[in-house]
């Protein structure tokens, strides 16, 4: 696995992401500056990490989506290359047209940091192969704008094509509005691109990988990526 972590001004979870990639894959990722126009050679995974790119002063992710490096990311994805987009990264991916839809302010208009329960909707993707479909995992969220919304046709298409990767559920895996903290449409926490090579999600699997810090349910997502890329 040769991963690149993008760094935009205002991004702040790039260190957490790099540390997790190193912990799980054993390899340091390349940190790639937003103003570069090329990805380093041989990159097989691009990670757009979380944070507050450009302060989120405009629509979240809107400015970062137009950075020079994003052209390179789009062509990487167009060739089937893997892209993992977390939190602000998910917002950037939506703004950049890598994924459909948009992330609106949380239902109660407050930033929320808490552990949530996520149901893995499918395990036949490069990001989730080490989970089983139906697994419920505990991973934290930390965002003010994670309320996923898209037009009716887009939602129908995402659902019809099984492109919802993760949903907010109760601990028993059942849908329950009380556990859909940000009010996302259909409790969507993460979605996949058509070719299943781009995953965007609001929660932070990179923050639940180290037993010293807490639960490690996020770890299998990175192990899935390692397995996918090492097998290739």
């Amino acid at each position, binding site marked *: 696995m040769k991963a690149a972590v993008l760094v935009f*001004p205002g991004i*702040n979870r790039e260190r957490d992401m790099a*540390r997790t990639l190193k912990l799980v894959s054993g390899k340091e990722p390349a940190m790639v500056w937003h103003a570069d126009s090329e990805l380093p050679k041989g990159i097989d995974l691009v990670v757009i990490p979380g944070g*507050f790119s450009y302060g989120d002063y405009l629509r979240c992710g809107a400015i970062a989506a137009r950075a020079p490096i994003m052209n390179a990311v789009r062509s990487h994805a167009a060739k089937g290359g893997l892209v993992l987009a977390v939190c602000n990264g998910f917002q950037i991916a939506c703004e950049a047209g890598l994924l459909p839809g948009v992330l609106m302010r949380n239902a109660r208009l407050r930033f929320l940091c808490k552990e949530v329960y996520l149901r893995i909707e499918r395990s036949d993707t490069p990001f989730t192969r080490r989970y089983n479909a139906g697994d419920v995992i505990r991973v934290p969220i930390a965002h003010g704008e994670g309320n996923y919304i898209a037009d009716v046709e887009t939602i129908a298409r995402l659902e019809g094509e099984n492109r919802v990767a993760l949903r907010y559920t109760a601990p028993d895996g059942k849908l329950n509005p009380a556990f859909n903290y940000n009010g996302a449409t259909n409790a969507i926490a993460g979605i996949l691109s058509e070719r299943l090579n781009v995953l965007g999600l609001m929660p932070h699997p990179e923050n639940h990988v180290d037993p*010293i810090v807490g639960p490690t349910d996020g770890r299998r997502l990175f192990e899935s990526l390692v397995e996918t890329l090492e097998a290739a």
Partner: protein
Amino acid sequence: MSPNEPKITPALVAEHGLKPDEYERFRNLIGRDPSFTELGIVSAMWNEHCSYKSSKVHLRGLPTKAPWVIQGPGENAGVIDIGDGLACVFKMESHNHPSFIEPYQGAATGVGGILRDVFTMGARPIACLNSLRFGDPKHPKTRALVSGVVAGIGGYGNSFGVPTVGGSTGFHPRYDSNILVNAMAVGLAEKDKIFYAKATGVGRPVVYLGSKTGRDGIHGATMASAEFDDASSEKRPTVQVGDPFAEKLLLEASLEIMHAGCVVAIQDMGAAGLTCSAVEMGAKGDLGITLDLDAIPTREAAMTPYEMMLSESQERMLMVLKPEKEKEAEAIFRKWGLDFAIVGKTTTSSRFIVRYQGDVMADLPIKELGDQAPEYNRPFADPKKLPVLDPATIPCPVSIGAALEKLIGSPDLCSKRWVWEQYDYIILNNTLQRPGGDAAVVRIEDGPKALAMTTDVTPRYCEADPFEGGKQAVAEAWRNLTAVGALPLAITDNLNFGNPERPEIMGQFVYCVRGISEACKALDFPVVSGNVSLYNETNGRAILPTPTIGGVGLLNDLSRSSSLSFKAEGEVILLVGDTKGWLGQSIFLRTILGREEGAPPPVDLAIEKRNGDFVRALIQGGQATAVHDLSDGGLLVALAEMALASNIGAVLHDPLIEVPTHAFWFGEDQARYVITANSAELPKIEAAAARIRVPLQRLGTTGGHQLTLPGENPILVSSLQMIHEGWFPAYMEASPNA
């Protein structure tokens, strides 16, 4: 001097917050009438907030030294040695006045300011904490203030990317018109790469970095040095606006140029902006500074020299650079999209000279601006001692269970989840103990060391007996750090009081500081940084004296730490420390009986140390499975919190001591902890306690889903949970008119 400046009149001097004798002192110092810009400069330097003129004489009594202290008070932040070539840099600061006027921005810039203090010294911030005090929940403004302050703290810290790991939130009518927002930041630096404000070398460039200068925050520090009245909300323009995005860039750029070896001296532009930072850098280095205001990056056209010198626009720094590294430093700042301008130079003249468009706008003696600031030994009244209440005379009108339910769902003791879930407490992936415990624990890099941190004060104790209250604030911080297994190392203090020109307020201040000093000495817990906030008073009504203590401790091995949750069923529950059933100034007395009376519990520092050292040794020896310090609400509240954190109940015995039952369960005697242990360890623990005469009492056993007290109906942990978690969200979501 410029012909365009207003003439100095007594009214103008008064508007600048200078007393007539202070103005005379300044005139004598410079031997002439000052210019308008100079008047602005001196008002910024000599106000209470920047000069500590009422407090300095008393602060000198605080212990500030220990072998592990690298830098005590007087710099941007305190620095302590934590081994392995690393240093911990930390400080706490208030943003009370601005937060009342404009809660979101006031609180946000409070966080921004304290983060800057820490990274100015070369440290990367690793955690934030805060201590918040609001007025009566029933006061019409309280809800909006809570909402704005919490959102502001989160808005800044979350975006900057530092975890907010702990703090406290309390309510009392005495904060109705003067809320307290105290923010603490903790950073990590390499011990031999600490940066200071002291300028060295003549003719070196003075460089302005960060955001542009605007008209916001002019006279902010002067505002913070006066009482409020009914028209205070009109002071909104003196509150600065925060830009956490710019601060994050400033952090990365500053650390990068420090790493590249470009920096000689650095000072953040906080209170009184450019004025204070330039004067401090020069004065500390025995050098003059000449500033050229034409070079200052400004946000708007036609700003006057006076406005530029007094602006408190945020996210700005002043540095003295190594001349040969100027280009390299500039390239780093440009990369991060930040302003970089050479705005002056260091000189041999010992003068602070400000030029603008060919005119000299100010020419002042640089050292005297700081050193010759007025210093007052204000008259103070000795606080009256309140009677010690005999617990036998205090009734308990409800059952113990009902009292517990009331306490655990009260504004002060309820869960603060609504607050801390708005803070990102997990970023950086090192938060080992989250908000809600005794102290937050943050891993240092990849371990095995960790830092413990906490903020504490019990204002009602300080009001009732400032000396004992000051001691107690320090002791409680020490106890909280001990309860997670850390060795307490040092504190930062944030002293919030009313108007020091009133002898009874000055008395509170003097005695609290004496109490802090005594406790710090006894507990080997020096003060390394701090902040004083006076004039927290509106229309003659002052806040409760609130000397907030921010404590930091070290865990050498994070696997040898403890938390408050019960760990397993069938473990023995033990009480460490002596219980007399002290109900004076207790939460029980206030919440159940509506009385705020009597002397607060005294703190015996020798016993505090003995009991704490005993508990820490048990934790480090792996014998204590759960530990919780006893404070507000006493023993039963502590036990309930341990049950709530684990969903494991407990069966408790009859106390069998000669103390009324309610005083046993709810008394707030100091120097106590609850611990749990495997019953196999009990003989060893009891023997160890007996050896050093630490009182140890068996309380019961963990297990089940309820708290069972002798002679009481069992209380389901799940129903306590509902009560405990319920108050805050219900309060915040209720209509303001309900």
